[in-house]
């Protein structure tokens, strides 16, 4: 079953063709990866999928709904969450508050009940806190719940971003280079975490440069080069694709 489908997705920044007619389908409950050299358009693709930038042409369908014209918060509410390549936490909020904000769309109450603090408000807030704690536990951050997010070490900040994305209760979670700047040990931990996320029944789309991680964990890979999807398929298929080898290593010259 496909949950997400991009059709002919195109994004031009002036003369720069960041994405050119990229189409793909995302299978529910699987781990997908998007790879490609620097500047291939991977993050632009994520930005289009999450409403941060509006595609020039093409459409995105998410569980039967066209979402390419929606605002980021509407996309989040429908069930697509993401992390950022350059960490974007709420540094002056505590770790717990970071995952509490993320449940914004999943709790509904107005200003008045926040002021009056009736029993329904209190139970909703308690639920938000308990759920937040669960996500922190999942990412191994429960001991730091009351620390300020900005004071966490780098690796934990990345994990908090994943916890925060999970806390929006998405169907699909987009991870933009979750292992950037990590050592091999931490990278292995993140691999485990990604499997855990999948275990929750989430669909994962990953941007990643670490080939070992990509090949080991993905069920399906899309290769972008200069904004064009040059290959897609299982890790095996992609690894042996001549176009992919060319994009990464250059063309073989014949004499």
């Amino acid at each position, binding site marked *: 079953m496909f949950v997400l489908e991009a059709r002919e997705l195109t994004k031009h920044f002036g003369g720069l063709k960041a994405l050119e007619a990229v189409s793909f389908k995302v299978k529910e409950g699987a781990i997908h990866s998007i790879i490609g050299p620097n500047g291939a358009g991977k993050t632009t693709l994520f930005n289009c999928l*999450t409403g*941060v930038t509006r595609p020039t042409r093409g459409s995105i369908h998410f569980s039967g709904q066209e979402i390419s014209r929606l*605002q*980021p*918060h509407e996309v*989040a*509410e429908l069930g697509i*969450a*993401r992390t*950022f390549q350059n960490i*974007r*936490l*709420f*540094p*002056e*909020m*505590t770790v717990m*508050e970071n995952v*509490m*904000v*993320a*449940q*914004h*769309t999943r*709790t509904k*109450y107005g*200003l008045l009940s*926040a*002021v009056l*603090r009736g029993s329904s*408000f209190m139970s909703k*807030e308690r639920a*938000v806190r308990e759920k937040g704690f669960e996500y922190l536990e999942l990412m191994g951050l429960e001991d*730091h719940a009351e*620390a*300020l997010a*900005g*004071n*966490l*070490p*780098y*690796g*934990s900040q990345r994990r908090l971003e994943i916890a*925060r*994305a999970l*806390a*929006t209760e998405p169907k699909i979670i987009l991870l933009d280079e979750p292992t950037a700047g990590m050592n091999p040990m931490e990278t292995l931990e993140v691999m485990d975490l990604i499997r855990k996320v999948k275990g929750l029944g989430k669909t994962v789309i990953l941007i990643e440069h670490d080939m070992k991680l990509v090949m080991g964990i993905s069920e399906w890979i899309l290769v972008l080069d200069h904004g064009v999807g040059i290959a897609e398929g299982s890790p095996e298929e992609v690894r042996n694709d001549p176009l992919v080898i060319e994009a990464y290593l250059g063309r073989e010259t014949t004499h």
Partner: protein
Amino acid sequence: MKGVVQDQARSSRKSIAQRARESAGRSVMLRSFFIAAWAALLFLPFHGIRSALVLFAGIFAGLPVMQSAMRLGGPGEWMQRLPGFRAFTLRSFPFLRTSALPVFLLALFVLPFTLKDYYLDVLVMSGIYMLLALGLNVIVGFTGLLNLGFAAFYAIGAYTYALLNTKFGLGFWPSLPLSAVAATLSGLLLAVPALRLRGDYLAIVTLGFGEILRIVLNNWDSLTNGPNGISGIAPPFLFGISLGSLNFYYYLVLGLVLLSVLIIRRVKSSRVGRAWIAIRENEIAASSVGVNVTRYKLYAFAFGTFWAGIAGALFAAKMRFVSPESFTFMESVFILSMVILGGIGNIYGALAGAFILVLLPEALRDVQMYRMLLLGAGLVLLMIFRPQGILGGRKGVRIRG
């Protein structure tokens, strides 16, 4: 030439720690120099070159000594060992939550019986400014939207009551919510177009709005009586009894400040407050976790200006007179200074900032001429030594990975 070479050789032999110590020393010297020069410049026009030079020398020599003394014994070290110090540090200001609360409230309630009218009057004014600072703190402190025209909403609250009362004979009690609503609506009216802008641009538009409103009030003679203002505003009545006494205003303002603190605190620790702070911290991340950024910025504007409307109505009722003169750009800056002084984003900081900035000029009445000067000096020193404000900044533990 030879000297230079020797110099380089000598400096390369210095240990890294030594060099670090030297550069730290240099920055202390540099900082003292600027503070001293700056203070001396301020005093120059009033006391002539000689006392300015003395002041310069005093600060330039005194500051490093003071700093090294602090580093040696440090208030963080020996003062904390003093009995009772912890209870009195500014950090523990939210003592309102502890058992001191009833005592503190009781003290606030009996104050009018012990104070002279003059002091009570100052307290009432500081209470009105507390409401303003609390409101502005929601916009600037929580949501991170710089607003340089906050006095405009104060003015709208004040003029709403003034006009409703003098033109339609409406009393204070029905006018109070109407003033708040008028300020809120004008806040929304400004926010809808202005929130397309960010940062400095938003600040400039709010500043412009404040000026436009003041000029309109100044020139719309048929409605506002122009620069002459509106006089003869009635004080509040209750069962036909005038409540125009200072004691009454004191209790009214006290009640409203306590109420607003309670309400703002509760909103801050709800999904609404969390959304505001998330927007301040990182707008893109906030929208990516589902916060409708535009809508919550509007909420912040509406909620913040609401309190300005309340403060305006109180001001009009207490003064029995309003004129555009009370709502200048300086007034907006004054309110913003309170928020910054107390600590951006901190509710108790806004209270402390309003209290200090209303009391300080009164306390300095004898040195009239230097009031604004000292105020400015105080704010600059604050920015140098405690940029997060008196009570601002959340102190967290650094976690090791």
